Every structure is written in structure tokens, then in C-alpha cells.
């Protein structure tokens, strides 16, 4: 069995080896003595060694680990909420080109607010919708009208 560090080390090792393998196919310019793969191979080679070292360190550490220390537990964490928050933000990123900044931002801010603070009264729904509308409109006004920063227009809504 390997631990979290060992698994992370394996991911690093595998990724760097795959990328290293891809650098072998890079063509060299005959006029230039150092090809485009020279530096990436150094970086990826060192990363692979570090990834392997992390796996090794994890395996060695787990052999000498004390059961009492391993049993130490931290405070409870709400990982489900983190996954959902990432999901809501991912949805925002996906919908942004289609719906445009104002509509997508309104929906995202309202949904994220309701997710992070579940509504207990009808007024909470109103508060979330108001926050979404205010964020979308103020951000649009400040960036587009005042700072001349263009924001995404929706392909579907043209808004």
C-alpha cells in the first residue's frame, strides 16, 4: 500500500515520463546545435527523479510510521461542498460563451451563494438573486462602460 504522497509521486513520475517520451519525437533544426527538446528533457528528467524520490520516501516512511501517529485525524472537512462548488464554477465557465457574461454571472453568483449558504427562508432566495443581479450589473458597468474591458457576449443570447 502506498499513501497519498506515494500516489502523487506516481502521477508526477508517469506524467513526466510520458512528456519526456513525447520530446524524443521533436525535430532538430540542422542549423542550430541545441534542439527544442534539450531543455524540456532536463526539466522532465529531473521531475521524474523527484517523483520517484517521493514514492520511495513515502514507502520508507510508511514502513517506520507509528500506528498512533497514523491514526491522528484532523477536523471534519466538507469535501462534498468543494466538489459541488467546483461543479458550479465549471458550469459557469461552460455557459459563459453561450449565455454571455451578464446572464451567466447572474446565474453563477446566485447558485454559488445558495450552495454555500443553503436558503432557510424565502428571503434568502431573494437575497441570492439580488446578489447575482448586482454582481453581474455592477461588474458589467464598471468593466465595459468605465474601464473599457470587454466581457464575453453570448453566442446564444447575443447579450
Amino acid at each position, binding site marked *: 500500500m502506498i*499513501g497519498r504522497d506515494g500516489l502523487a509521486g506516481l502521477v508526477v513520475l508517469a506524467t513526466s515520463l510520458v512528456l519526456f517520451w513525447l520530446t524524443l519525437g521533436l525535430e532538430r533544426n540542422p542549423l542550430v*546545435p541545441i534542439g*527544442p527538446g534539450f531543455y524540456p528533457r532536463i526539466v522532465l528528467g529531473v521531475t521524474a527523479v523527484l*517523483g520517484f524520490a517521493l514514492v520511495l520516501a513515502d514507502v520508507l516512511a510508511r514502513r517506520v510510521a507509528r500506528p498512533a501517529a497514523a491514526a491522528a485525524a*484532523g477536523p471534519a472537512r466538507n469535501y462534498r461542498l*468543494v466538489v459541488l462548488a*467546483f461543479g458550479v464554477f465549471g458550469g459557469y465557465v461552460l455557459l459563459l460563451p453561450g449565455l454571455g457574461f451578464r446572464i451567466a454571472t447572474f446565474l453563477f453568483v446566485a447558485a454559488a451563494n445558495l450552495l454555500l449558504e443553503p436558503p432557510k427562508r424565502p428571503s434568502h432566495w431573494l437575497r441570492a438573486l439580488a446578489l447575482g443581479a448586482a454582481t453581474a450589473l455592477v461588474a458589467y458597468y464598471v468593466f465595459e462602460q468605465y*474601464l473599457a*474591458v470587454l466581457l464575453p457576449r453570448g453566442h446564444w443570447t447575443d447579450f
Partner: protein
Amino acid sequence: MYDLLWHSIVGLMHYKYLVPLVLGTVAGVVGGALPGVTITMTVIIVLPFTFGLDPLQGLAAMTGVYVGGSAGGLVTATLLGIPGTPSSIATTFDGNPMAKKGQPGRAVWLGVWASFFGGLLGGLFLIAATGPLAKIALEFGPWEFFSLFIFALSMVAGLMEASLIKGFISGAIGLIVTILGNDPMLGAPRLTLGIDFLEGGIPFLPVLIGVFAFAQIMSDVEKMGRAGGPTSALERAVNLSASHLKIIWEILSRPFLLLWSSLVGLLIGVLPAIGGSAANMIAYDQAKKFSRHPERFGTGTPEGIIASESANNANVGGSLVTIMAFGIPGDAVTAVMLGALTIHGIQSGPLFISQHPRIAYGIFAAYLLAHPIMVILMGLGARAMLRVVSIPKAALFPVVLVLCTVGAYALSNTMSNVYVLLVFGVLGYGMVKTGFPLAPLIIGVVLGDQIEVNLIQALMTDSNPWLFITRPISGGLLAAAVLSVVFALWQHRRHRLRVAAQGTAEQDVDF
């Protein structure tokens, strides 16, 4: 030099620059006061607002954030015992006991004025040292620059107490980000994985925004709904009046403490990516060691507040020196500033001060002016800042994420940067959860291209690799890099022994 500085100060008093500077300082003070919102996060939030401004306006706003943020954390640290930012952790040790003893005004204003004087001492160093250091850097060839960047990277990666290997892997991931896309020497495509967008490489600002914003926000989201907020115990009727002359005398009558703490902050600021969080702790520790009454530390002694706050504001000056003279970001905040410069087509580094004197001296002027502005803001709004901590995170976080999205999108008006933001947001959070530090990743991303360019240039000028060691400055920097790794190994061993002695271990999960 001083003529130019004076003209810059006068120029910055024009409302066109003064308004962004004041607003930036307000944002910094408020962001600094909000527990869970760091200065890095605040500067990331402010970044998109600077896109439509001219470079000096934008950099004035960011300098204001940096200075304001370094001081903003002290209000909640002293009055509530909750440091608004990691830069004010040590301020809680004596600030909060002093406030509890019935002297909240004295505690807050000792911190504010110590920040002011420490910051001004940092400013003097910034103005005096940047030019000469940049001149030294102008003598550097590609060998020296390569070694300097390797030294910076090794220092940052090595400073991670918990795991040295993870620090180095984090830096290496940053370097890997920079090898995706066309090679910087000839533009030959490499490792694009068939994605057109990658041909131009991955811009570092969406990476930086993604890793820092998500790592911080999602780490707070984890804890939501699990514990009561700290705001229930707020004492809003607190009286913050104090005699300013007495407070200023209290600070200036301890010149050694002020100078030494500011020097500690400066030196830590000059070293890449250590930042104000270490500066205030180390300065506090030094002040305690040098004190004739170390037993008074932790009970509400003014020395503790002065040491912590003067160090964290002087630290800002040190960080700005590194970026302006060498083009190496001293921390994540200056990395964002570096990005802001790049957006406006300005290359930071040894030539910066000679090629863009108006902007360089404008930054000096903004830094100097931000301090009195910060003092005025504290006078006007210290009590209101206690209310700031009661802003619900459920309302704050979505708005911050929208601003991060705008910041990423507006870099080139494409959704690709927003996708980069999301991908690196997931990566950043994953790295934090698996115990990988983020600072080396950012330094790797910022310096990666420069490391490659200087390495290739050096080898194409002379293929003898020993020159990296035999050229005195280059060899010295590489030796310093090796020493920093050796020091890190010693520190890591000490940390492990301490953890073993305390009978605690890093949390790990079986798969």
C-alpha cells in the same frame, strides 16, 4: 535621482493617479482585515480593474493594495485576536493582550505607526538600492542570470519545511508549464498535445490566479457549515482614541528595535517568495531575543507589536527591490505586479529602471504616498473594519471568483485563459490538499522561460558547461543554491524530529 522622485511624487498627487492609489490602499486595508482573504487574493481581485488603466495608474493601485494589505491585518489581529493576513500573526501575540487590558487604541495605533515607519524605511532602501542592484545585474551574462534564477527557485522550493521533495516537485511543475508550447528560441512547436491554444504557451497570470484563488477559497469552503464564525464576539463599541504623539514617541524611542525589525523585514523581502508571514514572525522572535525583558512578550508589550508591524511593511520594500532590479518576483503579490507590467508590454528586470524611469519612480512615489494614505484610512475606518469581518463568505466567494474570471478572460479576450484558470484552480487545490506548496510552482512558471533562454544562450555562446561554475558570480550563485538546499535539508530534518517529538504526523490517506 531625487529630482525625478520628487517629480513623480508631485505627478502622483494628480487625481488621475491618486484615485487608483487611494482605492488600491482601501482595497488592501479591507482585504488585509478580512480573515481568509490574503494580500495575494486582494491584488488578484484588483488586477482586472487595472487593465483599462495606464500602466502607472494600475501599478499605483497595486502598490496601494500591497502597502494597505500589509497593515490592514493588524486591526482584527489586535482587537479580535484574529490575524487578517499571515503577515500580522505575530501582532496578535501582544496586540490582543494589550487591547484586552483596556488599551485597544494604543495597540492599534502602535501597529499603524510601526507599519508607517517600517514601510518608510523599506521605501528608503527600495529607492537607494534598486538602481545600484540593477546596475550590477546589467553586468550579468546568460550564465549569471541562469544561476540567479536557479538560486531563486532552489531557495523557494527549499524553504518548505514539511517536505523538501514536494517543494522541488512544485517548482518543477511550474517549469513544465513553461515548456508546453513553442520553444522560446526558434518558435518550434513542442508538447502542444494537439491543442492549438498551447502553441502560444500557457500565460502565467491565469495560472497564478487559478492556483492561489481556488486553493484559498476551496480550503475555506471545506470548513463552511462546520464551525461558528468568529464574528459573534465582536465588540463594536471599542474606543480607539489614543495620543498619536505619545505613540510615535513610544516607537521612535526604540530606534534599535525599529531599525533591526525593519532590516529583518527588508532582507526577507529581498529573498524570493518568503514574504511578510515569515518577516513578522522572525522579527518578533528577534525582538524577544534582544529584549531585556523577554518575559513580557506575549503579555501586551509594545515591542512585540512594533517588531511585527515594522517588519511586515518593510518587507514590501524588499520584495519590490527584487522585482525591479532583477525581474524576480519576491512573492505572489509581486508576481501579479510582474504580470500587470507584462500586460502593458513592459519587461521587468535590470533595464526596467533605465528604460521606464517614469514608471519605476512612479512605483517608488506610490509606495511612499501609500503609507500616509494608509494611516489616514486607518484613522477614518479602523472601527468599520471590525464590521468587514462579518461579510458572509457565501456572498464574498462567488464575487471573487467572478473577478478572477474577468481577470483571466480580459488578458486576451479569449475563453482559453478562463479554461486555464479552471484547470489550474483544480490543480492548485489538489496540490494544497496533498501538501505541495504553491510558491515554488509560481516562481517556476514566472522564471521558466528565462531559465531556458539563458541556458540556451549561454551554451550557444560557449558550449563549455563548466563556465556556469568557473565564472565567479555564476559559480557563487550556484554555490548559494547548493547551500540553500543543504540548509533546507537540515531544516527539514529538524522539522521531522520536532514532529516526531510532538507525536504528531502529517495527515495521510491510504489508497
